[in-house]
């Protein structure tokens, strides 16, 4: 089942899905598994596994530190794929790879996709790979039934959204605001208008991320977006109160 089909199927019974985010190897792979268990039991629908990179320039301080710490503790791409395999075997949510293009480039796009398939991944998000540079990997991905996630943003012109929409597969990631991950976004009219605008240019489900902090934000997106992406908020909860904090956060979202 492709990513779009999976989301559409789930949406029949849920008015909004939740996508969570985990930085591989941070604080440790054991903690990652614990986090995924909590997410699974709280009914999370999608998880993006971030492969750590030394120059995470689109990330905010929390993820920057997580990337750094994970690398410092020796995390390799092999371990990330192994972990993904484990996750896709143990859990029922769909898993996406998230990371920076150099990780893919160094491995080779073909090889990367082959391993992604093998690990059970559903798609990938590469925030620093613009459409123009993605032509090859996108067509390879589509051949393999992987979703190459495209990002739409508040600074994208209509012309640009049309281009992005035409290339979109599986799901579109709508960036709710300017800036990096981590800081709070108020889901107001401008976000809803942005979603509406994006909808005009794509048929695939729409996920909204960047600064989704809790139940209130998810409620605000209900009826507008298909998926709410909870990234830094989860990491913040974990750092503040560990597994129980994470559990509280995700339970509150599905309550």
């Amino acid at each position, binding site marked *: 089942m492709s990513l779009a089909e999976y989301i559409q199927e789930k949406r029949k019974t849920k008015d909004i899905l939740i996508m969570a985010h985990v930085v591989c190897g941070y604080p440790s792979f054991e903690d990652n598994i614990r986090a995924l268990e909590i997410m699974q039991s709280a009914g999370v629908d999608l998880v993006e596994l971030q492969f750590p*990179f*030394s*120059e*995470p*320039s*689109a*990330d*905010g*301080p929390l993820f*920057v*530190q997580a990337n*750094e710490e994970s*690398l410092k503790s020796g995390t*390799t*791409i092999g371990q990330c794929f192994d972990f993904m395999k484990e996750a896709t075997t143990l859990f029922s949510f769909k898993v996406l790879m998230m990371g*920076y*293009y*150099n*990780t893919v*480039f*160094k*491995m080779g796009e073909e090889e990367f996709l082959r391993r992604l398939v093998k690990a059970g991944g559903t798609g990938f998000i590469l*925030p*620093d*790979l*613009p*459409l*123009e*540079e993605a032509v090859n990997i996108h067509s390879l991905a589509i051949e393999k039934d992987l979703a190459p996630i*495209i*990002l*739409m*943003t*508040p*600074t*994208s*012109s209509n012309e*640009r959204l049309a281009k*992005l929409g035409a290339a979109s597969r599986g799901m579109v990631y709508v*960036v709710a605001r*300017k*800036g*990096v991950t981590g800081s709070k976004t108020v889901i107001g009219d401008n976000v809803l208008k942005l979603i509406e605008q994006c909808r005009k240019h794509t048929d695939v489900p729409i996920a909204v991320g960047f600064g989704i902090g809790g139940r209130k934000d998810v409620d605000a997106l209900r009826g507008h977006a298909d998926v709410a992406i909870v990234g830094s908020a989860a990491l913040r909860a974990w750092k503040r109160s560990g597994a129980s904090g994470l559990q509280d956060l995700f339970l509150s979202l599905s309550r």
Partner: protein
Amino acid sequence: MDIFEFPPGREGYYGEYGGVFLPEILQSTIQELQECFRKCKNDEKFWSEYIEILKNYSGRPTPITYLPNLSKQLGGAQIYVKRDDLNHTGSHKINNVIGQGLLCKRLGKNRVIAETGAGQHGFATATMAARFGLDCTIYMGEVDVARQRPNVFWMENLGAQVISVTDGQKTLKDAINECMRDWVSNMADTHYVLGTACGPHPFPEMVSWFQSVIGLEAREQLLELTGSLPDRVYACVGGGSNAIGIFQGFLDSDSVELIGCEAGGLGVESNLHAARLAYSDASVGVAQGFKTYFLQNGQGNMLKTHSIAAGLDYIGINPIFSYLWEEKKVRFEAATDEEVKEALRLTMRSEGLIPALETAHAFVTAIKEAPHMGRNEIILINQSGRGDKDIFTIADALDDQKWKSFINEKSDQYHREKY
């Protein structure tokens, strides 16, 4: 050969290198910048306004100085030096910064941000911002803040906010990441004044264009002084802006050999250097918005780099150089920290010039090669900056006891004042 005549669909690429690898959120910003730059480049008035400011504000053209003593002592080629150290703020960085300042005004933005390693680019940007009436934030790795405090002091006094970056290696590359993070939030009113010929298109082309003033002047001046072109041109290569700047005066002349001098740090197998092309530790990658040779591991994560010169201590290299190197148009050599100190000593004593530590890398290589050249051959070195700013680093490197006592006394004085 016009390296900036891109084949269709390959805008911003030099062979395989360059391009734009940025988050989608910056797509419109970078496009706006590309368009604005294209207009400026095609507008003769822009260039003449640019040259006019460099002349009246920064003191261009900078001269070429012949080094009779060093030439004689080395017994080979005749050595000439292009004096970009005489620029306002003390390095070639001001050229690029004035150019981007003008461009920023055309973009209608009132705030600039910049990364800085050695502090020279930050100093230049803060200066330009004061002069052009722009808000200014400078990102600088914590390690560099520590080793280049005088520049930080001046930046702040020029009205810039200096933010110490504590991520990663806490040096130049991390400052660039922070700039990107600022830029994706504030692109509406903010122009990112990238300090070297790296980063996403149009930065390598744009910075090269602004820095080409060095090469254009140098070619003409050297012809006037000596009646001929140089046999070899040496420039240090951090990001690669001063080097591409001077090289552009000679790219068309096959008789001129161009030599880029990288930071050899502790040496070829030390793993503590910043030589991307001279040593064989680097490989092609994509980071910080562009594709080039990076010092990275097999997984694509960047390696720790090191140089005595903060301004050369960078993981990547001007993508144009990756191309020109492969095309054998530019040769790359590295100079170690130790060699740099030696060359600096020699240059100070023999000619009364104080090159910046970055620049001294070019002197090292020229000094090594000059004796093996003929007396009628000509060497041109680009003196990208002056060494004054490096007093703390140089004094430490030379282990100057009087300097240390002075600092200790100064510190005692500050402690006494407190009580």
